[in-house]
Each structure stands twice: as structure tokens, then as C-alpha cells.
């Protein structure tokens, strides 16, 4: 993994047009991610993602900003802004869709961890890489980590 970036690929047995709708429309997004998603799928549009705590009913709202809408190839947005009014460094999530013989290849890229100063990426790289990873250095915690990873 490149430092500062999370990349995931998945193949979907559906056309890029269908997949694009699912990743870029708020009514679909709330089915695969937050409890509610409010944004116009237009470049530059501000939006919100809302999570509801099932026990307390409290909601958490996270700002989002649509960056690129290029159907049926690319949809990207920023979230986790570090300053109010969608300012400061933020994470950038990009979905790149490529047609295949039987469907669509999705590549999800989330970047910006380094800019945010979290250094999650460094941690994740070490964490994922078992040869150099925490399992190697932390035998006492190894079993616990393995259980955490196994938890969905």
C-alpha cells in the first residue's frame, strides 16, 4: 500500500452505469454507508452524511463535498474536513469504474491521511504487512489483534 492511501478493488456483475448510480446517488449511498446522505451529485456541491445511534437516537453529521462527477467513470468526494465550513485538509474518496466483459471493476481510493497528520497510513502499512507488522513486534497482543481483524 502506498503510504497515505487506502486502495480497494472489487468486481461487480453490473454495468458501469448501474454501479455509478449506486456509488454517486445519496438514496443508494445511505444503503451502503451512513444512515442518511444528503447531497446533489454535482461537482462542488456541499453535502452531509448522518449517522444515528440506534440506542440513544443521537445523530452525528459529517460534512461532505462532491469533487468530481464523470458518469459512468468517476465519482469523488471529500469528507472528514479538519476545519469548519468544509475547510482544511480532508480525506478524498474516489471511485474509478472500468467496464469489464461481464460487469464493472471498481477501484476505491481514499487519500489524504498523511496530510491530516494522522499517519494512519504508516500504521496500516505496518499492520497489514505481517513480516514487519505489529504481530511480529507484539507477540503478546498478536492474538488480540487477530480477533479484532476477524470481527466484521
Amino acid at each position, binding site marked *: 500500500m502506498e503510504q497515505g492511501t487506502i486502495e*480497494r478493488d472489487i468486481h461487480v456483475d*453490473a454495468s458501469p452505469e448501474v454501479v455509478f448510480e449506486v456509488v454517486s446517488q445519496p438514496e443508494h449511498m445511505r*444503503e451502503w454507508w451512513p444512515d442518511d446522505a444528503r447531497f446533489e451529485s454535482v461537482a462542488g456541491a456541499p453535502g452531509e452524511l448522518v449517522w444515528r445511534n440506534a440506542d440513544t437516537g443521537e445523530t*452525528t453529521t*459529517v460534512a461532505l463535498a462532491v469533487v468530481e462527477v464523470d458518469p459512468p467513470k468517476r465519482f469523488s468526494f471529500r469528507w472528514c474536513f479538519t476545519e469548519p465550513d468544509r475547510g482544511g485538509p480532508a480525506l478524498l474518496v474516489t471511485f474509478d469504474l472500468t467496464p469489464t466483459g461481464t460487469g464493472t471493476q*471498481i477501484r476505491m481510493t481514499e487519500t489524504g491521511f498523511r496530510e*491530516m497528520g494522522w499517519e494512519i497510513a504508516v500504521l496500516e502499512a505496518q*499492520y497489514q504487512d505481517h513480516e514487519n507488522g505489529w504481530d511480529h513486534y*507484539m507477540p503478546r497482543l498478536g492474538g488480540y489483534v487477530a480477533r*479484532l481483524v476477524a470481527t466484521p
Partner: protein
Amino acid sequence: MSTAVDDELWSAIGDPTRRTMIDLLLSDGPGTATSLSRRLPVTRQAVSKHLAVLDRVGLIHAESAGRERHYQVDEAQLARAVAQLSAVGSTWDARLRRIKRIAEAIERNRHHDEGE
């Protein structure tokens, strides 16, 4: 779920020297600024500063025994940090699986409608 991340915890654990210190405290048991500085290419003063950062976010706890403070890892807090870390990657895996399921269901329905 929300992926609100504890920034201070991340930056505390993000530093390679501090991670090595945690590794040493886990493998060798409780240590002091002096004992850690012997194992690291940094001064005792630098080690003390790093220990203070780790202490502040609760990754280690100090006990005063004798002349120096003895630090040990708070495994619960460390596990929490590791869990947050793995959540960043694994939540995307879960989201992408849901995207796949939704898109494929729409595609199947579309073919079904066309077939009627």
C-alpha cells in the same frame, strides 16, 4: 457507524520512535526513560518527551517505584487504537461489498423487467 478518529491517539502512535518504545515495553515489560534510552538511538530527554505523549493519550501508565517512573503499556487503549486502525480499512471492504450487492440486484431486476 461513524469513522470519527481520535487524532491525538493517532499522532501519538504514528511516530516510529514511540511505536518502537511501545514494542519494547510490550516485549520487555515495564521500563523507565533510562532503560528505554539505552535501547534507542535517542537521548533520555527525548525518550521522556515521547513517554509524556504516550502517557497523555493513555497508551502507557506510570508507576513511581524508587527514583524513576516505571511505564507500562495500557493494552486496552492500544487495542482500541489498533481497532480504529483496522476499521479504516475493513469498513471500506464492507461498504464495497454492499455496493456490489446493491448494484447486482439492480442489474438483475433490470434484466428481469426487460425479459417480461
